[in-house]
């Protein structure tokens, strides 16, 4: 099964990459852009009996490694 773990910086944590990209976009002439945030998506092939189990596995992996809960939130989706 395909599991997608979506990791984003917690609200309130400054995103230096997003900020730099926002700057760069503005200087390229994209004037309609406000806030930019850069997040990470981890796509995993997981062998599991069913979607529920796959999600659980994804959550465990997110907690164990894929996200740093001090600064990041995550969200797990079973895609297929």
């Amino acid at each position, binding site marked *: 099964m395909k599991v997608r773990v979506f990791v984003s910086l917690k609200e*309130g*944590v*400054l*995103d*230096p*990459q997003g*900020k*730099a990209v926002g700057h760069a976009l503005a200087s390229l002439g994209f004037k309609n852009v406000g806030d930019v945030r850069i997040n990470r998506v981890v796509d995993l092939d997981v062998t599991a009996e069913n979607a529920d189990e796959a999600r659980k596995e994804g959550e465990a992996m997110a907690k*164990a*490694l*894929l996200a*740093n809960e*001090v*600064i990041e939130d995550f969200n797990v989706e079973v895609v297929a």
Partner: protein
Amino acid sequence: MKAGVVVFPGTNRERDMAHALTLASGQTPKMLWHQEESVDGLDLVIIPGGFSFGDYLRSGAMAAHSPIMTAVRRFAEKGGYILGVCNGFQILTEAQLLPGALLRNAGMRFLSQDCHLKVEGRDSIYTKGWSAGDVFRTPMAHGDGNYTASPEMLDRLEGEGRVAFRYCREDGHVQVDDPQINLNGSARAIAGVLSENRRICGMMPHPENLTDPAIGGTDGLPLFKAIVEAFGV
């Protein structure tokens, strides 16, 4: 003093660290491979710089979950002394042995240059080679050194005297919003922090690379001398 230097796949400043310790103590530290399951019997565990596991995903993340870190955590719980430099600092925060996290440098570029640090932390073996307020020069070399923590945590660190080092100008002036001084954009210009019991220290710059008179100077040596003094040779 019995010191051990942890080596992860991708660690690359272990020799530099060993060299500095040897210069300060006359003894070569033990190298600890990341798969070892015990660090018992050591006075001090050092996690040196580098790109453990390529620093892929997040700097230090994968190393923080290596087998040896279970042992390091146990060591910490028993009151062990741990120093993490650069990648070592990142690993200690990822392992939640130190508060906060290290984000990408504000300028988005790797920074390799000399910087100046103001010594702030009180009562730690890592800072007592200097007097509070002293300034010393040290190289830095990192892409993710932008320290962040919640405002409450930052206040707490300040209040408890747990900010070990701050980026400053050569004359000691600290200016958080000046990218020429606070080079990587760290919150409150923090370059190094201490644990609650002051036995764990993490810092981004590399004092170990300025300990040899033949290699640019000895500005970083007091850190290592003080450590050695604390434990005896």
